[in-house]
């Protein structure tokens, strides 16, 4: 059983989706509870998997290999290490909360919606554990379709525009990557990642010129997903138009596939090119950190504000990846999770208030902390996590990234650290205009506070934030050895 646990985790949501297909569409509550149950089972499996994960072991664990299309060298190869385990856990954790949050928000085509989300979960989990590049690519692309549908069908007014923009943007990137993958296959004769890495290192190394172009193709594809400045403009549109669940999954997990792809594929496959591109990517990240923050400062739509803050936060992660320092990358991996928690929770909270007031314009709010104190408390905790208050999760990742970056290059570290000030600037502005101040609109006087269901899916976020903030050791222990192992790539 233990040897098949990754397959189980990946396929459970898909099987669930298949089962849901047979449920009568009018039976909304069965569909909702069923989807929640399935995601809870996945979470339980994820926790089981984490329990048997050994942090000190280098290399992949719980590996599954089966030949699949032997003629083309495509295999079914799954495995997990310190880089991917936290992301798998994050996905497993986020989904039940998302399902719970849609019970009121989504009233049309409930069945299709839940099936989409479940399929997306399989796609995300698969992408995190696949060790065969074609397998990864399949999952990577498979995520795109449900997300496209979620935005396009259940989205806001300009949903078609946003969905198309999202789709074309990511598609362009992944096509380039697909060509690069084919080139790699032709060069090494395999799609299997560990085997390919081995061959690239020993028997068939790539010449620098080829590395340069291939790295470019991979990185472009992933940089769009992250999104890295200046490839970010699809994100605010997608977030604003997406329904809450879509935003949470998008910000919470989907964006991390980009940064994960950089660590897992782009950098190790083409280390020379990665070093060559280092200054460019570091500066783009730094620009993204500051630019995203400044953009967040002038948004009137709460979702847009958070979307731009994601650009800023993920700039930190990309920076961490490209300074090639153990503490920075460990912090970067941790920060992917932290961003998933804080931004995921913020989007959930925005969804909560949107269900009640049907607006996301900042000017429609103000003073609601008096009306909905519990909601305000949750919102402030998520804000504090987002701006990296010590004692909460965001700080741990941010500190490790900045400390590591500073060690490598004080200039990068110093510029990045200004993001700490800017983060407080836009988030506190948001809190002030959104929660505090006088109540200007009478509609805001009668908003009901959080109900039990909302409590249930928000509280776990808070608990995790505090846990990672106060006692990050178990998380760091899972990640650190893999990162040090990974950095030996550059030892030569």
């Amino acid at each position, binding site marked *: 059983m233990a040897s098949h646990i990754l397959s189980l985790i990946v396929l459970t949501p898909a099987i669930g989706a298949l089962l849901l297909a047979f449920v009568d569409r009018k039976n909304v509550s069965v569909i909702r509870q069923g989807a929640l149950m399935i995601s809870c089972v996945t979470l339980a499996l994820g926790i089981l998997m984490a329990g048997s994960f050994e942090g000190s072991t280098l290399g992949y664990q719980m590996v599954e290999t089966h030949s699949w299309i032997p003629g083309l060298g495509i295999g079914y190869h799954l495995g997990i290490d310190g880089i991917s385990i936290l992301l798998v856990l994050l996905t497993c954790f986020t989904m039940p909360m998302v399902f719970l949050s849609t019970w009121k928000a989504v009233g049309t085509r409930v069945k299709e919606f839940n099936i989409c989300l479940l399929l997306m979960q399989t796609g995300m989990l698969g992408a995190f554990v696949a060790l065969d590049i074609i397998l990864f690519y399949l999952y990577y692309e498979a995520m795109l379709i449900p997300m496209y549908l979620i935005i396009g069908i259940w989205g806001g007014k300009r949903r078609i525009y946003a969905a198309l923009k999202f789709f074309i943007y990511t598609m362009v990137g992944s096509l380039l990557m697909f060509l690069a993958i084919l080139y790699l296959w032709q060069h090494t004769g395999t799609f299997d990642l560990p085997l390919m890495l081995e061959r690239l290192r020993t028997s068939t190394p790539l010449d620098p010129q080829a590395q340069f172009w291939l790295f470019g193709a991979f990185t472009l594809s992933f940089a769009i997903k992250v999104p890295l400045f*200046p490839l970010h*403009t*699809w994100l605010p549109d997608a977030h604003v138009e997406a329904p809450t669940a879509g935003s949470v999954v998008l910000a919470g997990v989907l964006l991390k596939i980009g940064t994960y792809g950089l660590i897992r594929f782009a950098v190790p496959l083409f280390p020379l090119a990665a070093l060559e591109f280092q200054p460019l990517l570091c500066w783009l990240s730094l620009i993204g950190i500051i*630019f995203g923050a400044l953009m967040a400062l002038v948004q009137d739509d709460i979702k847009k504000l958070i979307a731009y803050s994601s650009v800023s936060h993920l700039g930190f992660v990309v920076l961490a990846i490209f300074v090639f320092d*153990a503490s920075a990358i460990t912090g970067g991996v941790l920060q992917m999770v932290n961003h998933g928690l804080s931004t995921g929770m913020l989007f959930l909270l925005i969804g909560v208030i949107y269900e009640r007031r049907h607006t996301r314009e900042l000017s429609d709010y103000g003073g609601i902390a008096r009306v909905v104190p519990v909601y305000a408390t949750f919102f402030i905790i998520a804000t504090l996590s987002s701006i990296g208050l010590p004692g909460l999760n965001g700080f741990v990742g941010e500190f490790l990234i900045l*400390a590591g970056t500073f*060690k490598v290059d004080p200039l990068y570290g110093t510029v990045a650290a200004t993001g700490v000030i800017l983060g407080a600037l836009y988030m506190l502005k948001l809190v002030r205009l959104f929660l505090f101040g006088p109540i200007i609109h009478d509609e805001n006087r009668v908003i009901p506070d959080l109900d039990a269901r909302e409590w249930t899916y928000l509280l776990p976020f808070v608990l995790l934030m505090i846990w990672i903030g*106060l006692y990050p050791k178990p998380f760091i*222990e899972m990640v650190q050895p893999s990162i040090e192992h990974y950095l030996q790539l550059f030892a030569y």
Partner: protein
Amino acid sequence: METKLLWIPLLPFIGFLLNGMFGKKFGPRVVSWIGCLAPLGALAVTYSSWKQLTGVVDRLDQVVFPWIWLEGILEIPFKLTFDGLSATMCLVITGVGSLIHLYSIGYMRGDAGYHRYFAYLNLFTAFMLILVLADNLLLMFVGWEGVGLCSYLLIGFWFEDDANCVAGKKAFIVNRIGDFGFLLGMFLCIVHFGSLDFGVLTDREIIAGVAASSAWGMPAVGATTLITLLFFFGATGKSAQIPLHVWLPDAMAGPTPVSALIHAATMVTSGIYLCCRLMPLFESSPVCMAVIAGIGATTALFAAFIAFSQNDIKKVLAYSTVSQLGYMFFAIGMGAFSAALFHLVTHAFFKALLFLGSGAVIHAMHHEQDMRKMGGLRKQLPFTHMMFLIGTLAIAGMPPFAGFFSKDEILFSGFMNAFGEGASGQAQIFWGISFLTAGMTAFYMLRCLALTFWGESRVAPETVNKVHEPGGWIAFALFALAIASTVGGFLGVPAILGGHNVIGHFTGLHVETSGLSAAALETHHAMEWTSMILSLVMAAGGLVLGYFFYGSLADVRKSLTSENPIGQRLRHLSGNKLFVDELYHKVVVRPIEILSWLLFFFIDRLLIDWILVEGTALVTRATGDFFRRMQTGFIPGYLMTFGCGVLVLLYILLNILTGNGS
């Protein structure tokens, strides 16, 4: 016996959790009990830990758990340390803190956010205790930012008023700017010391090694100079020194007990504590010490000047706090860490007393803070007047009140640097400034006292009959602090008055002078007497001048400030706080806003999204249109194109097969 330390911050934290989560159900009575027992419990634990310190054991340690732990790279434990310095700070925080909690029962009675208030106050106490108990910089940073958070929440406590929220936000942001320096300082420590433990950072041998090295690309600036300057920058944020002092006066928007606890007695002194904690590191950099002395003295003067013409009673006290903190930094810059800490302690007593006294007045006046609408309150509030008078005398530096001893020690250290051996012109200027400030302090405090309590009553007729003396806990807290402000100075009676520097020895900050020869000692004592008499004269002069200017000689004052052109201009500058806020708004705040808008419209929207992204889409569509038109339905044309295509493909294929790569 060691496991007790954690309880010091944990008790207030539990208080926060209980009141924060269930306060509404508890009702005010239970909330007050929990809220006040938490810091009192912490005080009890501090006291018993302090008892353990005497004798052989000079410090207690407790590793609670490994915190940010990168095996072999960066290992930072959640570790608490209790030595003389932390003990002193803990006693001040829990002692003065408990009194202010008790005072709050009376002051905040009936407020809709009563439980929220006590929850925040307890949380603040917990973070403040972590700050002073931390054994490494990073854990200290938890407290450092945590107290900033509580300050933010409490300044904006009455958040229905947007001005309060703006003030809270300003405090947090300005502090964050300082924290930027703190962070960079920590990163440099990691690079140069490989550690953030105070044990390593205060080891003089290690420091000497690091000091010899230079920071990147700046060979002239030694590493320790850069590190200490960055930490000092962090300290200017938290302790409201130039250039980051602007948040503290606005922070008076919070409830008055908060101003007393956070913005006078404890949080704002964190910067001083940081310097004392890292004393050997700071001492290793004469450049940084000179900067600290200069900034401290300048801030002291500058804030005192502004305090001259403030009409809000709390604003006077706020600027006075900025000024007194400047004094403490001046002392640090002069190398008198022990004097700085001593003044920190006495200041906590008398400034808390003054703030709580002003709170009693504000409470009695039904939330009137403008001194122009007070006057003559002595008759109606004799007790409060008495308390405020003691506070005023203490801050002015009149013997035997607490401020006299601590201020005297600071001025003496400045005097020694200015006129003793190895004196420099720079030190003479700094001393001159601080000496002048001593007189100014006495003057503006007397002005505050006179405007509030003496002379004709200017109280609005509808409130004049409702003015009443405080009772219960408010009076108790005032009385207790008045006693502390009266006798607190005896912790550090100078040797020439037959004293023994208790606090300096206990905290380990005191620099021994015993190595001096008899003759040198004699000069030393002579200088100490000179300094003491000079500062006494200065303070008394300020008081007397104030007494007459706001009493019988009021006409002279008026003609000086409203008819004399220089006087007018000075008054204009002082009344407008030297236009620093306006300057920052023009130079920093507005430009960032405008820049963000410009970037958003021109780069994000116009260039990236419209021209590049939509432009690409447009070009693609246009190309598609072009090719669509080629679908003419004319078969020979298709064949032609097909033929050409085949030829091109064949050519490419041949090239690949024969050339086998280039």
